[in-house]
């Protein structure tokens, strides 16, 4: 019997709702499901929402009866917001969030590096926005609840997953005892300590770092802007690093590295937390300011990934698939990209529109992304928390030099999470004009947003299927192209056509963007009428042409949906 706590978690700023468990006895007998998503964090819920967008129903299982404890992930990147916009929760994130774009690194009281993340006038979203994870989970949960294709089950803990021939059998424990659930696919979005991963005895590849960090959220009224603050080797914590972030609702995140040899248990004693937070506040000139503890936890940096995310009927995603350091805000931000990718790849396989090679592509692309992140995050981690004497010596030499020498300062850059470019994806078209473009997003790249008018951006118009941007000022999409599009649609391929550059509605297009000033054409490097871009359902580019013809469109569509 699984008995999750029915007591609301404590929090200064968030009122936890305790949901009712889903009980098998109160529901009809369970037929075999298409997809069961295990875990209701960012990865699980975005996967379910993306699946639903493509018309695929899913069951989402949450072991708990409430959202996760503490703020956890607090910094969300522009690409995450673009993904959250696709599943309908970006407005709520924006409403309660604190956007920012500057980061500062301090050493011996001097600001030795200031990062200014670019904010293009064509971007709807800021480089980063701070929102506590409970709010983000609430917004996603509301979206799931409002969707008739998502069957959300609180208090349902997966005890075992047994792989059968072409499906999996789950033993799901609840407050009234276990029931059995069968599903064609199981999405393991059960987090960094994935029970499914352990039970399947899957090994992750990569490195674990020794240093521990305390993460503490305090309520305090600090007169500081929303910018990232990093302090290196301060007097109160020699050799170690401290990070601070402003959160909504009067909360500040303070992360600090523990002295070597100290255990997490020692570090989380209230008197230890108090002494260190007081010391940090004193160092930044706010000694004695009143504060209250909301939540604390301990973290250690790991750069690990499964080498394959698909195992029989089970697909791993988010932290269950890889463990990434917090430096560079890579946990939830990577999970959103995983989930967005998994959602459409799996949906098209479930619907029979593509073969399992499409899932192999998902795994290859996202494992590639994880490995790229691991390389980048490894650099940040070796600077923030040097793993050996040599790395410490180099880091300390850089700190010392940075007081007077410009050339070392870029080493403070912590390489914020950015979307992976699927440059070598098997879905990219071979015979298009990718190499001939002088501007615009290339093969595999995420889209460049473009401001079309007041509160109107290109990405507002995309998603839910493949998007063909066709640049023309003519009154119709050429007949031969329309025929290819109709044939693909008749086979079930979700494909939207957006005409760009005509003042009037274009026949054969679902939408027309006038692009009167030619700005969208310019950003996408399209010099003349007849150019086109094909975007996948995750908006990454898979083909682009200076002049599109029916044969090459057909070839690109065939490549994008391998059988």
């Amino acid at each position, binding site marked *: 019997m699984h008995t999750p706590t029915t007591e609301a978690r404590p929090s200064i700023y968030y009122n936890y709702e305790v949901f009712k468990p889903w009980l098998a006895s109160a529901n009809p007998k369970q037929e075999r499901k298409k997809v069961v998503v295990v875990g209701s964090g960012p990865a699980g819920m975005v996967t379910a929402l993306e699946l639903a967008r493509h018309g695929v129903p899913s069951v989402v299982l949450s072991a708990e009866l409430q959202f996760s404890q503490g703020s956890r992930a607090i910094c969300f990147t522009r690409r995450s917001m673009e993904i959250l916009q696709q599943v309908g929760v970006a407005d709520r994130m924006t409403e309660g969030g604190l956007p920012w774009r500057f980061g500062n690194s301090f050493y011996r009281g001097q600001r030795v590096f200031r990062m200014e993340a670019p904010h293009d006038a064509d971007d709807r979203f800021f480089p980063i926005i701070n929102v506590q994870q409970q709010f983000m989970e609430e917004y996603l949960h509301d979206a799931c609840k409002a969707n008739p294709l998502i069957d959300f089950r609180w208090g349902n803990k997966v005890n075992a997953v047994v792989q059968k021939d072409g499906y999996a059998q789950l033993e799901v424990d609840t407050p009234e005892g276990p029931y059995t659930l069968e599903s064609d696919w199981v999405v393991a979005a059960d987090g960094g300590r994935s029970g499914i991963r352990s039970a399947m005895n899957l090994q992750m590849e990569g490195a674990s770092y020794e240093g521990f960090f305390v993460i503490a959220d305090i309520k305090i009224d600090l007169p500081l802007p929303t910018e990232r603050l990093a302090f290196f080797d301060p007097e109160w914590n020699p050799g170690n690093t401290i990070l601070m972030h402003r959160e909504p609702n009067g909360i500040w995140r303070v992360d600090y590295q523990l002295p070597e040899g100290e255990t997490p248990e020692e570090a989380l004693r209230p008197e230890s937390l108090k002494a260190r937070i007081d010391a940090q506040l004193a160092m930044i000139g706010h000694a004695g300011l009143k504060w209250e503890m909301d939540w604390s936890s301990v973290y250690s940096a790991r750069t690990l990934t499964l080498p394959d995310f698909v195992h029989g009927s089970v697909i791993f995603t988010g932290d269950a698939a890889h463990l990434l350091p917090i430096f560079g805000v890579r946990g939830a931000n990577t999970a959103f990209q995983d989930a967005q990718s998994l959602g459409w790849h799996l949906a098209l396989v479930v619907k029979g529109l593509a073969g399992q090679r499409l899932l192999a592509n998902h795994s290859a692309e996202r494992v590639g992304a994880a490995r790229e992140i691991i390389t980048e995050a490894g650099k940040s981690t070796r600077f923030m928390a040097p793993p050996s004497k040599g790395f410490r*010596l*180099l880091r300390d*030499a850089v700190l*010392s*030099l940075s007081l007077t*020498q410009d*050339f070392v300062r870029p080493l403070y850059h912590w390489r914020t999470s950015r979307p992976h470019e699927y440059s070598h994806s098997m879905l990219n078209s071979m015979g298009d004009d990718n190499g001939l473009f002088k501007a615009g997003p290339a093969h595999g790249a995420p889209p460049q947003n473009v401001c079309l008018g007041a509160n109107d951006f290109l990405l507002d118009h995309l998603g839910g299927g493949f998007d063909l941007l066709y640049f023309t000022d003519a009154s119709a999409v050429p007949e031969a192209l329309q025929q290819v599009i109709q044939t693909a649609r008749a086979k079930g391929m979700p494909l939207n056509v957006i005409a760009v550059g005509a003042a009037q509605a274009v026949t054969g297009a679902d939408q027309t963007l006038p692009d009167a000033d030619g700005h969208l054409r310019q950003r996408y490097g399209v010099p003349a009428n007849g150019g086109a871009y094909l975007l996948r359902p995750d908006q990454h580019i898979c083909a682009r042409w200076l002049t599109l013809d029916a044969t090459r469109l057909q070839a690109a569509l065939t490549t994008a949906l391998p059988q």
Partner: protein
Amino acid sequence: MTDKALTIDGLETVYDALATAIDQAGQDKAQLFLVKLALLNANALADEHLFQQQITAALQDL
């Protein structure tokens, strides 16, 4: 390696200056000082491959 090399006089000047600076840095800070110096040299060299060759040379016969 480049064709440029120190003169004997120049090498002797570097020899004395480096020894004096190591003493000046003191036992606790000598290592840190040398790493800072190596980074400054590497930046002036502006050639990571040449620097790697120097690392290899310096690691010999320790």
